[in-house]
Structure formats: structure tokens, C-alpha cells
């Protein structure tokens, strides 16, 4: 890979403050980044769409902070939070979203199709899960010891290729963590209309160690995933874990038709409100200021970048 490989675990260890403060700070950055994106859309500064992670930030910080340099991530359409914890590069991501040359993939991918070092995302539900299994198998065959993490949503469980991928991962012993972020809604469709049966059993049916956690508490999720990822490193076997969470924002920009009362009730348990009361208010204020500063700096940097030149960006890769 051309870029320096991020090391989320080492970066977290090097941050100042308590563990809970560090996780909160990362979540505050994701939150501010996503809020700013929505403002930029309102101002017609961005094209296309974006799938915000607001409400699910505890998952990204709880899972990805356990990864080391060389570990592989495959994310989906809702990838910003995952990327920010993995790479801590709001500048490159915002430049990509603003369609700039010098963004993560020079404006070719936008919100859903990004790549940086060992992080990848794609916008088609399901198919990327098989790609992630292949990556885990490649790392195993090369003997690197790397763990691969792939993120799915509850809606993605409707895709047949997910089950082909689980079957292959179990048969061939792929060192991969399947994380299902169950946010209860597949775009505008509630879970009861899109998902039969039980989620965790889907992993178990393939002989994959599987579990679930219902939480929006970053500390709880972080503690939960540490041993899971350690076990994948030790055994080289796959693991399937469901996080029952909730998406506070719309699926894609302004398309939210969910009952307001339902959404507002869940706001009480959103990750920042869960963790916030346990921290010093002055520390929280400082973390939000820092998040705001970093997003603003990223935006200033991204705006200064040129738009891609069609003359040099239309060639096929050789």
C-alpha cells in the first residue's frame, strides 16, 4: 500500500486523557464531521448523497481501536465513522467528499467508495463481504497475521452473497470479524418487514462463533470487542457479532420518514449522551472544541485543493 499504514491501537494508546475521554473525543470528531457534511449539502456544496453515522459512533470506536497496523477493514456505504477511527484523516475524507484531486481517491469514489492503506469501502450491499473474506484469506495465506474487519447492516442480511461468504469464511478458516450494525432500519424499511428469524443464528448456522451486544456505550462496546479480536488473532477463525444500535439521522441525506417519537426516544441513548455524563464537562467542552477545530481545518485544506482535471483523470488503470 502506498500510504503509511495507520495503527489505531497505538494511536489510541498515545492519546491524552482517560480511555473514556479518548473514545468520546473520537466520537465527537465523527459527529462534528457528519454535521458539517449535512450543512455543506444544505448549502449545495456537495453533490450526490451521504449516509451519516450519527447515533452509531460507539461502534466504530469500540471495534476499530483494537486494530493494529496491517489489519484490514472493509466498510460499506456508511463508512465515514469507520474511516475516521481507522485513519484519523478528516482532511482526506472531506476532500474526497468535496470531489477534490488529493482526496482519498481523487474524487472518483466520493462518500461510499474510498480506499486508504488497508481500508476500503464499496456502495453495493453484500458483495463487499465476499471481497473482505478474500482479503482475510489472502492475509492468512501470506502469513501476515492480519485480522480483517467487515461491516454489514441489518439490511445487508437480505443479500444471498452474505451467506455464501459466511460459508466460505468458516470452511476455509478466514481470520475475519463480521460486524453487523443493526440500526433497525434498512433505508425506509423497518426490520420487521425485511428480516425473518434471528440475526446471531445466521452466524452460528455456519459454525462461526457468534454473539450480540445491545449497546450505545462506547466503553462497553470497546471492552466487548477486545477479547473477540484477540481470539481471531489467536485462532485464525472467523467471528460474527451483532451490535444492536440505532441510526439517529436519515438513511441518505433528507429521506427520513420514520416516526418522530421513535427517533426522539432513542436520542436519549445516543453514544455522546451515554458517555457524556460520566465525564468532566470542561473536558467534554474541550473535546468538542477540538473536534470543531479539526473539521474546520480539514475543510479549509480541502477547499484549497483543485478539482480533478478530466484530462488526467479519465485514463483506465493499466
Amino acid at each position, binding site marked *: 500500500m502506498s500510504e503509511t499504514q495507520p495503527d489505531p491501537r497505538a494511536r489510541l494508546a498515545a492519546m491524552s486523557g482517560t480511555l473514556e475521554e479518548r473514545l468520546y473525543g473520537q466520537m465527537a470528531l465523527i459527529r462534528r464531521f457528519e454535521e458539517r457534511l449535512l450543512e455543506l449539502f444544505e448549502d449545495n456544496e456537495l453533490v450526490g448523497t451521504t449516509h451519516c453515522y450519527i447515533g452509531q459512533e460507539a461502534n466504530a470506536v469500540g471495534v476499530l481501536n483494537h486494530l493494529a497496523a496491517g489489519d484490514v477493514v472493509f466498510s460499506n456505504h456508511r463508512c465515514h465513522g469507520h474511516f475516521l477511527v481507522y485513519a484519523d484523516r478528516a482532511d482526506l475524507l472531506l476532500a474526497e467528499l468535496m470531489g477534490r484531486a488529493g482526496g482519498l481517491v481523487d474524487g472518483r469514489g466520493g462518500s461510499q467508495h474510498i480506499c486508504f492503506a488497508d481500508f*476500503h469501502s464499496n456502495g453495493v450491499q453484500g*458483495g463487499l*463481504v465476499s471481497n473482505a*473474506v478474500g482479503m482475510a484469506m489472502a492475509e492468512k495465506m501470506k502469513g501476515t497475521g492480519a485480522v480483517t474487519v467487515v461491516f454489514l447492516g441489518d439490511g445487508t442480511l437480505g443479500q444471498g452473497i452474505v451467506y455464501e461468504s459466511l460459508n466460505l469464511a468458516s470452511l476455509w478458516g478466514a481470520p475475519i470479524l463480521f460486524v453487523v450494525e443493526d440500526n433497525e432500519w434498512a433505508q425506509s424499511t423497518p426490520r420487521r418487514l425485511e428480516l425473518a428469524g434471528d440475526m446471531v443464528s445466521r452466524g452460528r448456522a455456519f459454525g462461526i462463533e457468534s454473539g450480540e451486544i445491545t449497546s450505545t456505550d462506547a466503553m462497553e462496546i470497546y471492552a466487548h470487542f477486545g477479547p473477540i479480536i484477540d481470539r481471531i488473532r489467536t485462532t485464525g477463525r472467523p467471528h460474527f457479532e451483532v451490535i444492536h444500535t440505532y441510526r439517529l439521522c436519515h438513511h441518505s441525506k433528507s429521506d427520513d420518514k420514520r416516526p418522530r417519537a421513535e427517533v426522539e426516544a432513542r436520542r436519549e441513548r445516543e453514544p455522546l449522551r451515554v458517555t457524556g455524563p460520566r465525564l468532566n464537562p470542561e473536558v467534554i467542552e474541550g473535546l468538542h472544541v477540538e473536534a470543531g477545530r479539526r473539521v474546520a481545518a480539514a475543510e479549509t485544506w480541502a477547499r484549497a485543493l483543485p478539482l480533478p482535471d478530466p484530462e488526467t483523470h479519465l485514463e483506465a488503470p493499466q
Partner: protein
Amino acid sequence: MRRSTVLGSLNSSLHDALREDERVLVLGEDLLDPYGGAFKVTRGLSTAFPDRVLTTPISEAGFTGVAVGMAMRGLRPVVEIMFGDFLTLAADQLLNHAAKYAWMYASKVSVPLVVRAPMGGRRGYGPTHSQSIEKHFIGMPGLEVVAAHPFCEPGALLRSCIDDDRPTVFIENKLMYARALRLADGGRLGDLYIKQTGGDRPAHLLSYDPFVHADVTIAAYGGMAEMAVSAAERLLLDEEIVADVVLATDLSRAPIELLGDSLSRSGRLLTVEEGGATCGWGAELISQVSEHCFALLQAAPVRVCAREIPIANSRPLEEATLPQVDDIVGAALALTLPSERS
């Protein structure tokens, strides 16, 4: 396995690739010895390289997707789709994954993947195991489509695709496997004169005339290559008509150089393919000839293709559906009727 047949050439090439490049691995259904794959292209591989020949569940989408991920992490997987008809099961992986990653990630990754697909009928396998559906995969940006024929060395062609960094669908033909290779020596193959373009995916021009005179240009690829040459032989012996035959291996690009070369003599173009005509390879060739060398055409181009109905199991129905040597000869005769000649 004898390298002198298409099957032997492909099989030997896979043995060589696995031996010479430890990044190469082979995945697909029923590949393991003693069975060795439905058409035996992979015979012996699992015995020689047990760790790098993976027999898969019946999951074309899944194992093609796994191979895409492997390719993105530095391996060079070769996937076998048991019957080319099943390529559609992996279509999303080819279109929205394999073909996209290198470009949409600004060349931060490459996807050196080969998906081998045996196409074609004439073996009585019926509507879902006899088709030639490669036309649906031609024209996807980022995906290469290559087809073997006995006048090139299929194993060398396959190896060049394995060594290439781009994802490639490699079209084989079921009936062709048992055929002997027909390789030119010093520009001659028996009574045929042969010239070819350079590069890994050469186009070939074959003629019973030393490229001085031609009445018609027949363009073909894959399983129709030998039938086109047989038609050229009959046209010469029975009708004294000189047919040039242009054979493509790179289906993603029209062999426009050799077509122009031949059409400058013949002025008449006949395209031949085992799939249907609509939006097919021949349709694209005719478009490109019209764009690049319309002035060379002395008559409207003609396509010889499968009838656009499913391919029946019963032999007379299958024969009537798929293009035969007679159809090529008949179309060439009609195209070169004296009243049509200049």
C-alpha cells in the same frame, strides 16, 4: 497432458503458473483430483499444489468475490466457472467490484483476477448450459474479455492474463478443448497464409491467398474460429472465392488493424459468433469498421449468429439454432454474388 491440444495447452499453462508464481491459486467447483474439474482443465493441479487449489461450494458469486478480495491483497487467483452460462451469477462481482476497484480507488489497488468460463453448445446440454454470453461482459470499463482459439496458443494467452494486473474474463469453448492446436510456422499453416498483430492478445489474419486478393473478410473468435476457417476452405475449393479470416483474442477491442488490412482487398465483411446478434461482438465490429474505414465497404456487412431463441437439448433443434459452417458459406456466397461484386 498433451500440450498439442487446447485442453492440454490450458492445463499445462496452469501447472506452469502455479509452479512459477506462488501468488497464483485456482478456485472453482469440483476442481480436485481425481475428478479434476468438469472439463478437466484443472486435472492434476490439486495433486501437485494441494494448498493452492481450492474446491468451492456452489457459490459463483461468493467465490468470485473472495477471489476479487484475494487479488486486491496481492494474490493472483484464477477462478473457474463450471459452465460459462453461470457467469451471470458472478456478474455483480465483475461489474461493481472487480471492474471498479482499480479505477475508483485511483489505482491504489489492482485486481489481477482471471475468471475462466467455458462457453458454447453443440454438446446437447440444453438451454442453460450451452450459451455464449460473453457479449454481455464486453464493454464493461475495467473488465477485459479474452477468448482462446486453436490458431493461437491458448495456454500462453491464459498465462498473459494471469500475469496481467487487470481483471479478465477468459472465454474457452467446450467443443474446442479436444481440438489440436493449429499454430503457424513461418507465416504458414499448411496451405494457409497467416499473419498476426503483436502483443499478448494478438489478432490473426488467415487466408489461402498470400494477401494479394480477397473476396470477403470473415471475422470470428473462440469456438467459431475453426468453423470460419473451414468455411474459407470450402469457399475456395467449391466456389473459387477467397475468404480472409480475421480472428480476435481480445474481445474488448475490435481487431481494426487487420480488418482494415483485409477489407482493403475484399470490401465485404461477414462477422461470425456463436451468441446472438443483438448488441453482440459482430455488431460492435461493424460499428467500428463503419467509424474507422467505412470507405472500404463495398456492400452492407452481414452477421452470422445464433438464432435468438434458447438453445434446445435435441440435436436437430440445437443445430438449427447455432451457426454452422454452411451458414457461413451461404452468407459469404450471398455477400459475394456476382451482382454484388464491383
